[in-house]
């Protein structure tokens, strides 16, 4: 915005579109993971909760990293 960015606005918009697509995929994966875990938990299967929580946390870390990159694009 202030002209100091490495990329032009058109380039940043394209990068952001790509990031949004990846983030949407990750969030949909997390939604699927949550519904599958709830289903297993209600069925009395307690073993899946730990790996599912770890996977979901990893997904969030990825999304947070991408969001951080988006904000760094503007600097």
């Amino acid at each position, binding site marked *: *915005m202030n*002209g100091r960015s490495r990329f*032009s*606005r*058109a380039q*940043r*918009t394209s990068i*952001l*579109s790509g*990031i*949004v697509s990846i*983030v*949407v995929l*990750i*969030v949909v994966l*997390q*939604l699927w*993971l*949550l519904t599958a*875990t*709830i*289903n*297993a*938990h*209600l*069925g*009395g*299967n*307690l073993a899946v*909760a*730990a790996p*599912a*929580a770890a996977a*979901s*946390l990893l*997904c*969030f870390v990825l*999304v*947070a990293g*991408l*969001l951080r990159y*988006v904000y760094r694009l*503007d600097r």
Partner: protein
Amino acid sequence: MSRRDPDEMTIAPDGRPLAEQPKWRRDFPIDVPEDHYVARREFTKFLALTSFAFAVGQAWIFAKSLLGRHRSFPELSVARLADLPIGGSLQFDYPGPGSPKLLVRLGQGELVAFDARCTHLSCPVIPQVDRGRFHCPCHQGNFDLTSGRPLSGPPRRPLPKVKIELRGEEVFAVGVAESTP
């Protein structure tokens, strides 16, 4: 004459230069590409919040599963064998109030007990001993009388089984078995 940075130029929705735009748009210009960029960035932020909420939900389920793993069940005297005829059933709350269970006597010393709520939408199930099933009248779901496994209808999960022990003439509930989805 210096050239302006394209990033600082305001672009109207139709792409024509600002000088050709109507006066109201010249007075209140909207930079459409910039607007799109900011909207996508805000959407990404919203998705990150959603992702955080999902991760918190997963952590909550994990915490609940940890608590459930170390859960101990009390022993509860449910009925006297003489009070329950063969083919008869009895409803009781176990491990505490608000958790209705069904005890069914199938034979002389053959007893089974399951959660009384359908695993579909928690409607109360009805034991039909002559047909060998628990029947849920809400959505016509059926469960096997001896194993609690779903036989037909919308339920996909079995009824949670209550561990029971016969001590002399008295029936005790001693725990709730983990079921598999």
